[in-house]
């Protein structure tokens, strides 16, 4: 093993430690009673308890935050894909005047800071009597998911050889048929990767959720932040909530790992 390989392993190990130690600390703290968390030195031997989970899921009804986040993330992802994938295909294949300008404009919307959008959105949803609804959150999250979908899927469509769709057109298919039956199935890994990213961005979003949600539509990030009080932080409760928030994302990441790798490297080795 040469020294470059050793160095690369060392970098990976350090990176994993940096990433995994905080997660491990959260998991461990979620299983501790307060007296085991607040110790002068790190306490690794302790009697694990599920009290924090019982409190979070019982008294504090954290499951409602999980349900809300699931609905909003799925809704926003579905809406973003439904609108964004055809738009991406159009930008990749159709002779649209000023195509790059349109694409650049769409990307620009992703660059606008969320804090600049949140107040206008609040006013719009308030006047539409939609504040506190799932729709408000889904629509708000779609504003930052849609550009991602369009840009990612556009690059995937552009990597496909146009001959396949042209053959479909020659065989009598319309443009939509070529998109639906030929192009879309071939970009399925990219579609899956894009969907996973949309779900993750929506799942973790805080600002829009804080301002636009109602007491019955608050999402997981609001629920986790609520453990920080004026006087103290409920470390056990917040750790249990963080673990509960982590599980769906972790499972999703594992399930979609194959698609993620394929999708994110799709077309990267085109000759």
């Amino acid at each position, binding site marked *: 093993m040469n020294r470059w390989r050793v160095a690369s392993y060392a970098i990976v190990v350090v990176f994993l430690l940096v990433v995994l130690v905080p997660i491990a600390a959260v998991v461990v703290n979620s299983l501790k009673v307060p007296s085991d968390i607040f110790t002068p030195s790190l306490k690794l031997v302790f009697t694990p308890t599920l009290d924090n989970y019982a409190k979070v899921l019982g008294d504090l009804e954290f499951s409602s935050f999980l349900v809300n986040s699931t609905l909003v993330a799925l809704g926003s992802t579905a809406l973003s894909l439904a609108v964004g994938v055809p738009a991406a295909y159009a930008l990749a294949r159709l002779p649209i005047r000023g195509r790059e300008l349109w694409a650049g404009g769409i990307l620009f919307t992703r660059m606008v800071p969320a804090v600049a959008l949140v107040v206008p959105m609040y006013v719009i949803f308030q006047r539409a009597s939609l504040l506190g609804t799932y*729709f408000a959150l889904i629509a708000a999250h779609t504003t930052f998911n849609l550009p991602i979908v369009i840009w990612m899927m556009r690059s995937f469509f552009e990597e496909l050889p146009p001959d396949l769709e042209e053959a479909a057109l020659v065989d009598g298919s319309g443009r939509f048929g070529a998109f639906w039956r030929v192009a879309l199935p071939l970009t399925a890994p990219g579609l899956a990767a894009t969907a996973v990213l949309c779900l993750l961005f929506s799942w973790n979003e805080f600002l829009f959720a804080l301002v636009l949600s109602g007491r019955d539509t608050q999402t997981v990030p609001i629920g986790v932040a609520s453990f920080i009080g004026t006087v103290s932080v409920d470390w056990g409760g917040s750790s249990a909530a963080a673990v509960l928030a982590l599980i769906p994302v972790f499972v999703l990441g594992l399930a979609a790992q194959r698609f993620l790798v394929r999708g994110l490297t799709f077309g990267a080795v085109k000759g």
Partner: protein
Amino acid sequence: MARRKRWSGWAVALVVTTALAGCNSGGDGGSGGSGDPNAAPATAGGPMGTFPDAKLVLSRWAGDPWTSGQKDAAAQWSTATGGKLEIDALPYENLHDKQALTLQGAGGYDILYVHPSWFGEFAKAGYLAPIDDKLADAKRNPADFSAASFLPNVLEQGKYDGKQYCLPDFVSTIVLAYRKDVFEKANLKPPTTLDEVATDAAALNGKDGMAGIALPGKRGGAVADVMGSLLTAQGNWWYGTDGRNTLDKAAAAKAVDFYVKAAKSAPSGVLNFHVDEASTAAAQGKSAMIISTTPSLQALEDPAKSSTAGKWGYVPLAFTADKPAGELIYWNWCIAAKSQNQDAAYSFLQWYTSGAQQAKVAVAAATAGATKDFYTNPDVAAKLPFLDAMNKALTTSNPQPSLASWPKAQDQIELAVQEAIQGKKSPEQAADVMYEAVSAALGG
């Protein structure tokens, strides 16, 4: 044809929007409905009135045991009055912005937990409903409840332009806690002045692996609260009742000097300590003394969190012995001006801020009520070992500033203290910065 298609597209969007809006959680606000605000309580000590159709939303910060206790109280109120009261609990750091956004819009909140630093802003903007008439109306209050039931100087803080808007609770202040066993072992007497505190902290610092004193050093309000107490202990305050800057730079420099000396005997990382980090350090035996807010000191006596429970003594802050003082810390319960349920909202405010209810809050959460009968309740005295020190401190107190412009000044004051602790500024330079910050907050 194209136009019809476009319109049909809009129609589909409208249908989708309406359908998704059906996913609404029920929206905000609620109907006023029928009810009788003068109805006697169903049980002794229960809330006044019946409000069978009322649906109220209460906005407050999240965090236990307060939120859970609030939910229990809301359920009891609902059972007794027939109304429905829901809690919208948000992270403290985001509470002001969410309340302000909601209140300047169509509303949606009926009852608001308002911090002094933004009470003035909300009252001035017309977001809050005056309650003078309700508080003075004998029919809608229990026989033993009126404005006279409250500590006058605390109730006064809920007034703006001569009108009473809010009822207070969460009364607390800054006191010193010291380890009785450690002081005894070191042959030290409990400190009676802040100079003694600094000297004792230096003497005890590093002994048995413990720091001399823990105190908040992180910007976020607590540093300014301690500074306010240190100024009050010198008979000084940020500004006068006429709205003019009254800060004595020499007094401010003396307060900062104490802070710097204390910080030198504090656990490492004190600049990142909020009240809970300070109390956690003290509870785990890492510090011989602590200066902090009274609710945070509950952690010292909680065996589940503290390895030093039962070992603490409490004294008020004083630069001159027998002249204790402190900053009056409190929160306001207010009614939104746009609420359609103001009678029901008042019913909850009256009941929740009463001495009997606040005693229940105190037992669970170590915060104090603002009514006189709270302080004669033996259960409360047993639960709050710092109550005596707190009462002594509050005999000479100044309330937390409630200027709309105060949050910025507060941040500058806390930054000046931090820079003095870091040695970037002398206490005199920090005092100059504070004077300018207060002047700016006062509009000149």
